[in-house]
């Protein structure tokens, strides 16, 4: 990787770091794991920077990397390693605490693939086709995963879901 590439890489990542970190958190539902996933993704992106830069949609390329790292981590028993906290210490000092806990529990309850489909489709605004490519599955599978995820969310949150505390 040449110096030019490196500065281009750094400039590109700096502008998107926070957004990717939030995406990783949505996938992992745990900040510490999210940071691990993001770090691995950033390193891989560095190694494949020229390919990523040449992609039609570099952002989608990175989201794909992020999701694949997340899914691969989840398949590895190492994902269970040193859970340094018994419960995630992320509970915020908010007073609509119960609702947020419910939302978090509902998301955590989803299988990794369904959560990934949901995050890519609705947080990263990727199309069904792009999501299918990222997850390495057919578009029909993305649709069914998304539908199942939404059904589970509906059941967990109660229908109709409202954002009012």
């Amino acid at each position: 990787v040449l110096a030019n590439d490196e500065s281009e890489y750094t400039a590109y990542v700096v502008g998107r770091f926070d957004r990717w970190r939030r995406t990783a958190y949505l996938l992992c539902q745990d900040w510490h794991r999210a940071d691990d996933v993001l770090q691995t993704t950033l390193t891989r992106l560095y190694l494949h920077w020229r390919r990523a830069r040449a992609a039609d949609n570099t952002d989608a390329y990175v989201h794909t990397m992020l999701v694949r790292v997340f899914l691969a981590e989840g398949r590895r028993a190492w994902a269970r390693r040193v859970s340094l906290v018994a419960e995630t210490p992320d509970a915020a000092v908010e007073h609509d605490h119960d609702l947020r806990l419910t939302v978090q529990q509902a998301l955590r309850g989803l299988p990794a693939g369904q959560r990934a489909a949901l995050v890519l489709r609705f947080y990263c605004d990727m199309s069904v086709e792009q999501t299918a490519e990222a997850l390495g599955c057919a578009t029909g599978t993305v649709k069914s995963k998304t539908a199942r995820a939404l059904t589970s969310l509906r059941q967990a949150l109660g229908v109709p879901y409202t954002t009012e505390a």
Partner: protein
Amino acid sequence: MDPEEVRRILDRSLEVPAPPSSASILTAVALGRRRVHRRRLAAGASAGIMVIMIAGLVLALQPRQSAVPAMRASTTSAMPPPTSSPPTPASARFDPRFIHAHIGWIPPGLQLASREASALTYASSYQYKPPSGRHADGPVVTLRLSQPGQPEPESDAPTTFASAVNGRGAVWIQPPGEDATTAILRWSFVGGVSATLTVAGLRGGVDVQQVAHRIADSVRIGTFGPITTPFHLASVPADMSLSSVWVQIQDDASRAWESGLTFAGGGAGVNVHVFPKPDCACGNKFDTVQNTTINGTPAWMSDTSVTLYFGRVIAEITLTPDRDRSGPANDPTNHATVASPNLADLAAGMTVYPNRADWRAPLG
């Protein structure tokens, strides 16, 4: 549920204070450079090996003048398997209040980053002190102890023989994708407690396996005094017992430490989380919002949680679902019917100690 609604749900789950990030662009660049360098070396080495192999093949195909009799058995027999752990008592448990491993030697410059203890596992990790104002890049040395029968990190990864640790059989764990700068060593102690030591990202180009072995040789298990935390509770909720204790130390400006513990019992749990009020652009999320006072401390109290504002330290005590997810507290609509522990009593007995020199055992 339309897409906008789903987006709102996802956004809501992001409304949590983010701890300082341990991911960093600089680390990615450094790791990336190292891998690129190693690839180039490997490519050069492969070419050299190929030349040697071809030369060897040519020589081997030359007609020999006399056959060499087979005189002895192969000296390259399979590596001996690591010795197995002896049978262990099934009732073995860690006491979550205590430190259960003492590491006699650790590379200079590393300092304690975290401890976590539960009945079945104990873990401690160490990292370099970050430069002022910077975040550390995450643990460099992590030791995890597991009671017999507990899932171990990378249990399905390939292993290779490692020389014994204090006379006990040991293996190197080699998960796919780990590079040569990471060493994971597993061995067991008398009694069957299994230890997994991970060493990664050491500075100075050292032999990581040698370092891992030296650390492992110095590890002793037992009970080495209490885990000290920046808070103390005067009581344990009725019908509950201590489930885990954890503390994380991050020597950076924004959040120097975080700590907590959990109680479980009676179909529910209680999570205690104590942290300094962060210096971040978090809006008014951490401003004191008070609806009561507990022992002179401003607090916000609901059916399922209490938040205490000790000046620059915030403590949250939250009723949580049971871990097996079968308790009534798992039903978010059903909090009122849970035989809730008295969170106000627990909060009234809490004292916080922001300075590390004052930390003490969280209970008792």
